């Protein structure tokens, strides 16, 4: 079994409050010792994602989003079959956002065969190391869903 077949990438910034949720989720997933799954924490510019997911067959991205929804709301997208709504900004302090990176990857035919996104609506993105309660409370649900997705598809990888 190829251990790069399934790739979970947590995206975020440690020091921007709710923007760290993607990292927190990946760290929690690392403790679960999921078979056939590689877990990566990504903090830098999303453009590197195109190279990071190059050899993976199944990719799950986890990131904070900002869309004026209830904090803690969980969004799920199949990036290959659904467009990501423009008002849903995957919070990025850099010029090329995750959504744009995916669009770029699509244009260059450099997307993985499977690409799923989990977005968690953040409340605070100012400097800080604490997540808001609403976002913290959403974490166990996201973890469970990500595990379910992996367990569903892993036998086929």
């Amino acid at each position, binding site marked *: 079994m190829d251990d790069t077949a399934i790739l979970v990438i947590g995206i975020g910034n*440690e020091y921007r409050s709710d923007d760290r949720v993607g990292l927190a989720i990946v760290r929690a997933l690392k403790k679960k010792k999921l078979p056939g799954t590689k877990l990566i*924490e990504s903090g*830098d510019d999303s*453009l*590197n994602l195109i190279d990071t997911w190059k050899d993976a067959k199944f990719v799950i991205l986890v990131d904070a989003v900002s869309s004026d929804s209830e904090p803690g709301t969980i969004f799920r997208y199949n990036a290959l079959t659904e467009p990501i709504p423009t008002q849903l900004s995957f919070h990025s302090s850099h010029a090329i956002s995750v959504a744009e990176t995916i669009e770029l990857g699509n*244009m260059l035919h450099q997307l993985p065969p499977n690409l799923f996104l989990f977005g968690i609506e953040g409340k605070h993105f100012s400097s800080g190391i604490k997540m808001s309660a609403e976002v913290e409370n959403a974490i166990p649900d996201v973890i469970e869903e990500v595990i379910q997705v992996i367990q569903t598809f892993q036998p086929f990888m």
Partner: protein
Amino acid sequence: MNNKTIKVDYLARVEGEGALHVKIKNDKVTDVKLKIYEPPRFFEAFLRGRMYTEAPDITARICGICPIAYQMSSVHAMEDAFGIRVDGQLRQLRRLIYCGEWIESHALHIYMLHAPDFLGYPDVIHIARDYPDLVQHALQMKKAGNAIVALLGGREVHPVNVRVGGFYKVPSKQELSQLAENLKRGRDVALETVLWTAQLSFPDFEQDYEFVALWHPTEYPFNEGRLFSNKGLDISVQEYENHFAEEHVAYSNALHSVLKERGAYFVGPMARYNLNFDQLSPLAQQVSREAGLAPKCSNPFKSIIVRSVEMLYAFDEALRIIEEYEAPERPSVDIHPRTATGYACTEAPRGILYHRYKLSEDGSILDAKIIPPTSQNQKIIENDLLHYVEQFINLPEEQLTWQCEQAIRNYDPCISCATHFLKLYFESQDE
């Protein structure tokens, strides 16, 4: 007669978020306000009480695009405090890892953030449709730069291998040599990039800048040198705060950096290039001339060419270091903390990044000051906007607005720490 207000509340294609407000009345610019940067004050506070060993890892998270710059400035400041000099191959490896970061950062800016302006595209997605090769080049070069940082930084995503005194682990000659093939290809593409940027159209706009950068007698500066300007500044980095001050600006959540004696100043690739042209590699100098760029350049729009020249230099320098590399016996030198204050300025992709730390006897941090390059460029960007708008005041509003944004992007500002979220709109006043 022009009476208008140009308001760009959300600047696109700069790192982070920002806002611009220009007021024009009777053909005169009456006001320019640029809100683009929030300095990392949170991190300065957060560092207090931490050990000196933690500074590279904590400060690296201030900026996702240039973590290496923060690591380099912090380790050099700590070494300054403890009277340590890191030399030989370790010094070369530090230059090499910086080459990697310059390549990544410059490639991103040239192709994805700046080129769209020159080609008339709103963003890189649209360019990708018509010029996929351009985007592929950018990705290819980012990848080459990333490979250097990943190998020397010790991890795919966030560099963990840099420490005060050197590194935790150093690569073998063979490991480094494996990077050479891709770097050579990257160098070829970088060369073409210089020539390609040189044939873009540039507004006729020049200013009398005070450029500030590190200067070194024998090398294009990364980590070491004196602080120079083209108007007589010649100081050690330890004297930085004697000559530079931060002024509070009411409308911006930021402090404006000024040279006490003369006001606004300009850091970054243009500054380095104007002050250190002779220290560029022969290839970089030659290609620069071929591209029609003189050793002195005061048109900020041509920063895209200068950035390309630096990117080419970084590939060239990386290959030179790899070629001459011999693995050092030890990955780092011994450190003995003591009560002291340490200073450093290193050349981040966007310009000088100043770190100062006050340390207690056991090496814990009492006080930290971090002044990033974008912070230092805010005033000069405002000046540029004022002069640019005055010069081109008769352009149609939409075009003028876009050119203002482009003028800001000349500085490749990194505003990751900014907390303003605003929307773009244009308002015109009839008087």
